[in-house]
């Protein structure tokens, strides 16, 4: 791919700013184009070297990673950040023991070094030791309780262990910190839905509804609301009154009617699904 130098730099900048994980593209752009003209880059060059270094480790392109690390070490000797990158280079070679040593020393020397502690969790995860990774991350969060990235990661670790209650707790922390973020509400609702009890299904319905209110284009929340409302409507649990079941059914139907308002985005297959679901909901209503 023959992109101009300017376009390549602009694309690398976009990937850097959006935080997208497209490591192969980054390394290809670097190797095909940008690496030959680093003298044109100015101060942006160091951020670029870092970005390419991490992406190259991600793809296993260790020669490109080494080339970047050499430049960074020359420019910033005795830097903790570079030390951490050296440890990440060891991780990429699967030399996890040596990497762990470095991270442990760094976190003992500087108690406020959150990044090294998080890399320790990453190494435990790479070894497949989920339970220890959870323990390490939990102790990290006691010291750095506002680290949202860490709460999200902890939630995922709990989900991998199928511990839905604790995964939900992590999402609750995130919702408390950022109550207008539709993705947190949607993820919480998905966890509650997966738990499967009647109460959790009702909660899932509410949180999906809230996610839709915050972002009407969130397809996962729309689907989730449809399914959760349908499940609540068909619930035969004695504690749910017939009034609440009728309300859930009406909500499901309302959602169905609202979905086609994004009609320019939907394809015919989705409409088939919606028609199928309308039939199911109407049948359920008839049965009650």
């Amino acid at each position, binding site marked *: 791919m023959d992109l101009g130098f300017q376009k390549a730099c602009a694309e690398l900048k976009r990937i850097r700013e959006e935080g997208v994980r497209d490591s192969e593209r980054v390394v290809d752009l670097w190797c095909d184009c940008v690496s030959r003209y680093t003298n044109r880059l100015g101060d942006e060059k160091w951020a670029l070297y870092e970005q390419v270094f991490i992406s190259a480790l991600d793809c296993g392109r260790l020669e490109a990673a080494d080339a970047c690390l050499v430049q960074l070490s020359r420019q910033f000797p005795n830097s903790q950040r570079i030390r951490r990158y050296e440890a990440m280079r060891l991780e990429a070679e699967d030399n996890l023991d040596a990497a762990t040593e470095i991270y442990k020393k760094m976190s003992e020397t500087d108690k406020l070094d959150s990044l090294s502690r998080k890399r320790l969790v990453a190494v435990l995860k790479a070894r497949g030791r989920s339970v220890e990774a959870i323990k390490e991350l939990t102790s990290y969060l006691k010291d750095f309780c506002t680290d949202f990235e860490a709460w999200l990661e902890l939630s995922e670790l709990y989900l991998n262990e199928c511990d839905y209650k604790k995964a939900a707790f992590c999402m609750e922390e995130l919702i408390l910190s950022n109550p207008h973020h539709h993705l947190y509400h949607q993820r919480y609702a*998905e966890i509650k839905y997966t738990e499967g009890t009647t109460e959790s299904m009702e909660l899932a319905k509410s949180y999906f509804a809230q996610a839709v209110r915050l972002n009407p284009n969130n397809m996962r929340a729309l689907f989730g609301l449809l399914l959760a409302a349908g499940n609540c409507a068909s619930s035969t649990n004695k504690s749910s009154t017939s009034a609440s079941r009728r309300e859930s059914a009406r909500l499901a139907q309302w959602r169905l009617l609202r979905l086609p308002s994004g009609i320019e985005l939907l394809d015919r297959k989705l409409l088939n699904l919606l028609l199928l679901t309308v039939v199911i909901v109407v049948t359920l209503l008839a049965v009650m």
Partner: protein
Amino acid sequence: MSQFLVEPLAVAKIVLHACKYPHTAVNGVLLAEKPSPDSSNSSSKPIVICNTVPLFHSNLNLAPMLEAALMQIEATYKNYAIVGYYQANELLNDASPEGVGAHIYQKIAENCPLPRSLYILVDNKAIDRKCSTIPLIYYQRKEAGQSQKLERLPNSAVAIDDEEDCLETLANLLVRQAYRSLVDFDNHLDDIGLDWTNSRLAEQIRN
């Protein structure tokens, strides 16, 4: 005689899906044609897995989107049945089929209209650009009803249709980075205009 015959399109989509997201686990379902009602239900003929639907690359353990996806698949592929499940694990050294994937597979197997169902696990270590072997491991649930255990099938139980050609096609696809144009259900949910049936990619693979 092998129990299953997997077509190159299915193999290609599984491997491409795994290559698109090398840093996370991915999963999807396997499709085969529904037997016509008048054909004899011969369990000795191999079941032909002709296509797959790549599903998710994040949060494989959450139920609502999985349910939505399966409903969409049943509504779209009326002449096909879901006969199996595939998964690529997150860690390179993790070759275990157990976990959430096994639960999903058990449900699929219980509802499968054909006599047998298949669980394909991607062998992460065996994926390479040269494509010298098919990087897949096969499992099936044991016949005993109560047991949740999966038993590994020997490679002879699952044949690949035109294996040499399949490997060559796969090598070409990997070099061209064809996995960038693969759309899984997660991508479709992020951008509803994307075609999760991957009909264009399927044409490319067939040619």
